[in-house]
């Protein structure tokens, strides 16, 4: 019989988080530390062909996970991108072998702050090293090698997933044929860092956060994490979408209550967003992953010259942005296209007209589907 754990389990509990592989060789991180051993939890869809040339890696966003096209084990909800990925979908699992891995620092089975530190036999908490987008990509590269794939057909991702796709192109230009960064940027803006800091401060101000050691104390900073999610959620939608959906409509009442209970539907909606999030996400993971995004500046190591990042890049790029996305506005996406153009890389840039804001990439956007389908079909046209 095993001894009862002395601390709260990660949010995943005993749920089946899909496939997982643990690497003993240390993963050298940008912060100077290394991670060993580390686990990558992942899902695959479709079949890898004999020449191993039909693999597409999908990179998830801040609060996403490996369940891109299958039911989430904690929430029971369908995969987060079933409109894009599946049989007959733009990323067609009848043709392509799709891989999606939980990022390191995450909380769905890959090594992150809620997992056990082998050197202490306690949850890492804030002893987990700060990871970067590049570190996440390094871990994914290990996984892709483990699966026996030398060259990916494509790396596709939205938001933070788009950052990873760009980092893949920068770090491993010979290991991919096509890149689809959607609704992202080559660097996190001051405004974006500011919103992340609000979220982190909300988590750290929750007494149940306990200096990051909440698992040892048997608590969860659910209120702080919910506030972080609420604030972030506002940035994912456009002002017009919020206005059209909620306006000043009241929630289950005929008149204002003259109290601080949620009068407005928008308040109630945000509360729901916050409350449902804490059941599936770890607060420390939220701190680490937002930090990774803040640190992202692809051009930094090239003296700020983004085009230098992509010099001699044979991959094809298709950059997709949305007109009403104010978190990663089209102009930021277009900067990437111009940088690629400046070094004669093969790049297309699309600005899809949508009033849905940043989250448009997760929603029903037929033009996005048409763009991605056409691009990948052509990229795969000479597959053997």
């Amino acid at each position, binding site marked *: 019989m095993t001894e009862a754990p002395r601390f709260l389990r990660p949010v995943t509990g005993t749920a089946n988080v899909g496939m997982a592989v643990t690497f003993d060789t240390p993963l050298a991180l940008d912060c100077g530390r290394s991670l060993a051993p580390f686990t990558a939890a992942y899902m695959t869809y479709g079949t890898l062909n004999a020449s191993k040339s039909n693999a597409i890696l999908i990179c998830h966003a801040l609060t996403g996970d490996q369940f891109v096209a299958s039911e989430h084990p904690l929430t029971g909800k369908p995969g987060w991108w079933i409109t894009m990925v599946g049989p007959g979908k733009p990323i067609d699992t009848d043709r392509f072998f799709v891989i999606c891995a939980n990022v390191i620092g995450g909380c769905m089975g890959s090594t992150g702050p809620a997992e056990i530190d082998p050197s202490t036999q306690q949850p890492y908490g804030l002893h987990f090293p700060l990871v970067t987008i590049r570190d996440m990509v390094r871990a994914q590269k290990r996984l892709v090698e483990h699966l026996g794939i030398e060259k990916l057909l494509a790396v596709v991702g939205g938001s933070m997933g788009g950052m990873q796709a760009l980092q893949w192109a920068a770090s491993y230009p010979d290991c991919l044929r096509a890149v689809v960064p959607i609704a992202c940027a080559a660097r996190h803006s001051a405004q974006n860092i500011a919103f992340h800091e609000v979220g982190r401060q909300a988590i750290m101000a929750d007494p149940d956060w306990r200096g990051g050691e909440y698992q040892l104390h048997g608590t969860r900073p659910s209120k702080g994490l919910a506030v972080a999610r609420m604030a972030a959620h506002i940035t994912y939608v456009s002002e017009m979408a919020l206005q059209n959906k909620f306006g000043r409509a009241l929630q289950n009442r005929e008149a204002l209550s003259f109290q601080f209970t949620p009068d407005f539907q928008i308040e109630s909606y945000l509360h729901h967003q916050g409350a449902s999030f804490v059941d599936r996400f770890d607060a420390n993971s939220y701190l680490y992953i937002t930090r990774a995004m803040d640190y992202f500046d692809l051009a930094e190591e090239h003296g700020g010259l983004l085009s230098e990042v992509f010099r001699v890049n044979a991959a094809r790029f298709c950059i997709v942005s949305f007109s009403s996305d104010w978190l990663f506005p089209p102009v930021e996406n277009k900067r990437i296209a111009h940088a690629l153009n400046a070094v004669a890389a093969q790049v297309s840039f*699309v600005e899809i007209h949508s009033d849905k804001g940043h989250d448009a990439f997760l929603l029903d956007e037929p*033009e996005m589907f048409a763009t991605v389908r056409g691009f990948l079909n052509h990229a795969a046209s000479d597959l053997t």
Partner: protein
Amino acid sequence: MSLRPDLAAIADMIRPGSRVLDVGCGDGALLEHLVRTKNVDGRGIEIAQANVNACVARGLAVVQGDADSDLVDYPAQVFDAVILSQTIQATEKPRAVLNHLLRIGRRTAVSLPNFGYWKVRLSLLTGGRMPRTSTLNYSWSETPNIHLCTLADFVDLTRECGATTVEAHALSDKGTTTRINPARLTDNYMGPNLTAQGAIFLLKKS
């Protein structure tokens, strides 16, 4: 698939293996033709979503954008040839656009409809209403063609922009093209300014 005659005439001006930017590339028919038959490194700029998607599905490198606002971001002399096909009359600032084209490319190919064409002149003279032709078939209030000009007007603009015409081709109603003497473009009698439905210019900075 055969190319529209005006596009075929432009294609003939492009040297194999060169770097080409097609501004207002539409569904990418010309660019794809150039990539396939002349092995060019082709890029496009296109404003309409459906056209951009068509280009992407052809495997072309196309940036969704607007000639009026986006050309400023392209560095000088990076393309061997820049193409502006049947687009200049729809731009906000034709002079600024032409200046950018001449800056970005070593050669610039421009095709445009001729508002001095005799059928257009006759239509205005006899009908007393803004002319509608097969190539300019819009009512005045709906037309995207906000800066129409005659071939002579366009030649004036190229000179003001410091460009010379390397070669020119007249476009007929039937879609055929005829090489013409650039010196005759401003001739107001039986020259192309009266007889051509449109023209294609190959320009370079003087």
